[in-house]
């Protein structure tokens, strides 16, 4: 039977479209030419400059602090949320489910804007704490969805079996449910971590003096042409770490 080539060609075209800009970026990070119009020889100059740019590493440190603490909080809240969504069917859970899904489709600018309104009206100084709150808020839904997907495959008779064999409820949860849920929780946590590291728009709204996260730093570097090649180098490092993260996360989801 004759098959159309169109889907294959579209697929290849889309992959090319998605990766071409990233590949150019990576190549240019080793290019001696400033604008990367043509190849002017291999250099590690931009990486050396990046290494010496202290403010970039300071921003990275702030970003990591927020990402780790926000994704940990989102993992706890999200796991509880997913468990109750899966376990109970009630009006409360319908409302709960709606509240969890709405942030997933809320445009970033609205989330940033409304959190800013909250902080301004309640007189909270914007800074590390407000960024952390914002990040937990948007990560929560993503973690919940990841754990919920895992729970749908979970065989709840395993818990009954553990109880029949004499385990207490707490022990059954700790020894049976949590280990089997762990890959889902970790995958959700990794997703939350990447989202938190990447966020620009929401962070921009709720950041204060002295809380320049990495994306905010990149945005201000983009305004001065002197530091443009340095962004290429920084981007290459970030893309490489994304690769690593995505690979870890897909391994976690495939296990068990």
């Amino acid at each position, binding site marked *: *039977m004759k*098959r*159309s080539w169109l*889907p294959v060609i*579209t*697929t290849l*075209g*889309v992959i090319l479209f*998605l*990766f071409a*800009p*990233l590949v*150019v*970026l990576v190549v240019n990070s080793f290019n001696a030419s400033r*604008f*990367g*119009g*043509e190849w002017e020889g291999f250099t590690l100059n931009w990486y050396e400059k990046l290494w010496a740019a202290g403010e970039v590493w300071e921003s990275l440190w702030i970003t990591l602090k927020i990402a780790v603490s926000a994704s940990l909080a989102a993992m*706890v*809240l*999200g796991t*509880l*949320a997913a*468990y*109750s969504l899966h*376990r*109970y069917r009630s009006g*409360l*859970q319908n*409302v*709960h489910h709606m*509240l969890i899904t709405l942030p997933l*489709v*809320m*445009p970033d*600018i*609205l989330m940033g*804007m*409304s*959190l800013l*309104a909250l902080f*301004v*009206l309640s007189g909270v100084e914007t800074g590390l704490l407000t960024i952390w*709150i914002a990040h*937990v*808020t948007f990560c*929560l839904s993503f973690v919940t969805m990841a754990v919920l997907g895992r729970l749908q495959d979970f065989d709840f008779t395993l818990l009954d079996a553990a109880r029949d064999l004499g385990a207490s409820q707490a022990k059954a949860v700790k020894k049976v449910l949590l280990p089997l849920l762990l890959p889902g929780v970790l995958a959700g946590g990794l997703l939350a971590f*990447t989202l938190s590291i*990447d966020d*620009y728009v929401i962070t921009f709204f709720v950041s204060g003096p002295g809380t320049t996260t990495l994306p905010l730093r*990149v*945005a201000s570097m*983009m305004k001065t042409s002197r530091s443009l090649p340095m962004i290429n180098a920084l*981007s290459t490092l*970030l*893309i490489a770490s*994304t*690769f690593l993260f*995505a690979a870890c996360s*897909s391994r976690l989801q495939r296990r068990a």
Partner: protein
Amino acid sequence: MTADQPPSRQWLLTLPSLAWLSVFFVIPAILVIVTAFRPADLQGGVGAGWTLATLKEVQDPAYLPILWRTFWLSGLTTLVCLALALPMAFQMARVGQRMRQVLLLLVVIPFLSNFLIRIFAWKSLLHPEGPLTKLLIGLHLIPENAVLLNHAGTVLLVLVYTQLPFAILPLYAAAEKFDFGLLDAARDLGAGPWRSFSKVFVPGVQRGLVSAAVMVFVCCLGQYVIPQMVGGTSDEMLGSKIAQRVFSDRNLPHASALAGGLMLAVLLPMLVVVIWQGLSRKEVT
């Protein structure tokens, strides 16, 4: 009576996330609407009392072209994304398990890479001294002095680039569940490839199609970084105006009024989908 009872386990488990989202998602959204009715003060905060003046300001006809641009750019981006994602989802669901994982990873990686960096990549690719401009001029496809950056077409291109994974992922999820035997049946009954694709496959993934369309459209409506970075001064979208009111004019009530309008524009299509999917679920059962 009920006050004496210990809170149920369900409430205990639900409370943390419910409380968090109520305080940091629902209340802020309501505050935005409320702020639109408050006067601005000079320090960039909100003054005392209530006013309808901001609502009158927002009805400025100068906003109309921006509103119109926001909608057509979002609509066109949605159409282009669906046109590319549909055949791609179709292909992804037809290949073997291993290849599927690889393709999925290839879609997700650019999606997870930093948003700013992806925009920056296009900015340097389309730069007058950049590789794509030089290549196209070298091939005589564009005139010598062509500028690829800073117009509405650039904004559209980068919008499609950043939103494409949002279209591919739900469509792929739907295509994965699609019974491809139906396509063979349609072909056996004499339908051509295009006819069986459009009459059998597309209706089969309808649910994924709707969620992909809403996802992309809604995300586009709120964009402001893309028009700011790759667009020209006449390519502003509604989001650009909101950001400007917050950060340049420091007029929170005015920004809130605009954001409130955007919120309605986002919630309405969502509501339609929820009702529509609720109805179609009833039909099935």
